């Protein structure tokens, strides 16, 4: 009878994994992204690896957004997009996962705002109006820093769009 059980991990929902090392701002960008989805009117669930795991140095946050999200859990292989801030993080992703990775030059250039730069790259792949991104970023940072971060965000967005136009 249970052959008819459907594996329906809400296929239409978008699933994103954010990964990096402690201090890189992985949780900051996954939170901004979750809020941008919320402001656009989507249902969102986000979970972070916390507790004992933080001493391992690896930080992973997973986000699911769509019309209606039930389970907050995903396997890395189900991720539609993976934003990986540190090159030494290994995830068992599928071949179809779109990777958002900074280049070596970008890592050096953006350094502390690398996470927001990558968020900008990610934004080019998602159907979220720019005003919601801006709102989410501004709410996250104090006035003084949000300008720098917005610049990094737009740089990332532009670089991703440029790459996409080449393809």
């Amino acid at each position, binding site marked *: 009878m249970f052959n008819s059980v459907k594996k329906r*991990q809400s296929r239409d929902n978008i699933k994103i994994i954010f990964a990096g090392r402690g201090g890189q701002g992985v949780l900051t960008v996954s939170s901004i992204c979750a809020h941008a989805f919320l402001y656009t009117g989507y249902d969102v669930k986000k*979970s972070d690896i916390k*507790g004992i795991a933080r001493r391992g140095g690896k930080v992973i946050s997973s986000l699911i957004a769509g019309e209606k999200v039930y389970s*907050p859990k995903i396997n890395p292989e189900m991720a539609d997009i993976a934003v990986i801030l540190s090159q030494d993080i290994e995830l068992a992703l599928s071949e179809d996962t779109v990777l958002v990775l900074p280049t070596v030059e970008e890592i050096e250039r953006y350094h502390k705002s690398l996470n927001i730069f990558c968020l900008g790259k990610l934004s080019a792949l998602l159907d979220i109006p720019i005003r919601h991104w801006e709102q989410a970023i501004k709410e996250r940072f104090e006035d003084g820093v949000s300008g720098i971060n917005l610049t990094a965000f737009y740089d990332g967005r532009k670089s991703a769009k440029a790459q996409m136009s080449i393809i």
Partner: protein
Amino acid sequence: MKTLLTGNEAVALGAYEAGVLVATGYPGTPATEIIEKISIYPDVYTEWSVNEKTALELASGVSLSGRRALVAMKHVGLNVASDPLMSLAYTGVNGGLVIAVSDDPGMWSSQNEQDSRLYGRIAHIPVLEPSDSEEAYVFVREAFAMSERFDLPVLLRLTRAISHTSTVADVNGKRKEYSKKYTVNTEKNVLLPPFTSERRLSLQRRMEGVRQYIPSSGLNRIENNPPLPPFSKGGKGGLSKNIGDDIGIITSGIAYQYVKEVMPEASVLKLGIVYPFNPQEIKEFARSVKELFVVEELGPFIEDSIRALGIKVRNGLLPEIGEMDQFILGKALMGNYTLTGEICKDNHATLCPGCPYLGVFYLLSKKSIFVGGDIGCYTLAVHTFPDVIDSTLCMGSGISQATGYSLSSGEKAVAVIGDSTFFHSGIPAVLNALYNKANILIIILDNHVIAMTGGQPHIGTGKGLMGYKKKQTIDDCLKGLGVDSVRRVDAYNLKQINHAVREGLSVKGVSAVIVDGECILKKKSDTQFYIDVEKCSFCGSCLLVGCKAIVRSDNSYIITEDCKGCGLCVQLCEKKTIKRQYKNNLCR
């Protein structure tokens, strides 16, 4: 207003809005953030109590006075608080009293996995279980209302996946103050025979009141109920071919979300109140479906209760251990889930580079002596120095275990315990050791913080959630208790530690060494070390200290960026090839 909240944040906000005057607790993953988040509201008095028992007892005093109180802890913390909990069901409350407890299925950050719903049954108190943050927010307010209405403390049960997941919640942020009058009521509040007799009978009546209230509470709901008459003939005939009409699932908490992923068509009775049960409600739902399943994380708590009502439930499919997800549920329902033995995933954390505990554990690892461990970061030492700790059980257990081992073996035994754990429940163990003339060395690892849960203050730090508090040093505490031999040593001075431990071991009776070193995560350092590769003989001595910042690279050792400049490795290097450098100084 729609916002994103974790389950823990939702509990804090819901409690704030419910007019909670006092919130207490003891840090413990995955519950810690409840108290941290509620502490941002100035109209709530918040404290980290010394342990969960005192937290609950304090809160019950607040309740007695007529105000609302929230207590938050992890599942094992509730064991510590279980003594007052059992009796609080008898006395009941005046102002609402809610205990938020977060379980850790899969043991992501705990010594065991246990099911706090069972406390509902042994204490005779209602247990509410939300499935997401919005429910957590709503349920906590409902829990306060139920607590006052039925004169009972109420348990709000969360699990890691609820506590630490951000989901969308519609909140209003408005606080409503609550207060009732206190009137002396000895027969209610003094649990002394023969008053206890009436309180026991009253408890039965109060819980019956809860049982009757359940259907109208709005906390349990039925989804996709098939249009079947309640008394169809044995479930035959008239059934639609849609499987949702055949299968009914009773579920609660996070498991509900997995049911919706895996079997979206099934009829669901979603329980918000997981204890007690309203038999009529369950029976009616069972009658409306052809086959009934219970989907719940951990053991068959709901399932057993339903079976006890004489209702047939299909069983044996779900795992009773570990954290569930939709993948496990899908496999289990198809009958092909086998537990692979990987319940704890990715949990091989080690002591941080520069951790003040590295030195003392390095020295202990060279001795063959029984070491009773305790709960805290220091237990991670066993991933660095295998066998250095002989046992770890629960908060405060190491001192008594060492006492027991020493008593039986006739040898001096060692106990290691952290600063906050010492205050939490180590003190009675020290007294017991002294009273019964034990022969042990107590090593207190004082890193000036509750490190494992993210750096909360405790009485030894003199700080609290609401500014400065009384400070009590461990040294004075030990001396006051009656320990004559107490030494405080620098955690980064191997010679000093070695000497103190040797002296401590030579004392007949109870001796203590306090290893003093601030948690490295709290400390800022402007120096790092590097290995002079030209002079290094690659003897490997520096590796012995177990610091993760020293790694092998081809045929040499290097100290990575993770170095905190603690200097432990320098003390082990025979060739003196480890040199200090200042950060941002490129001249080597």
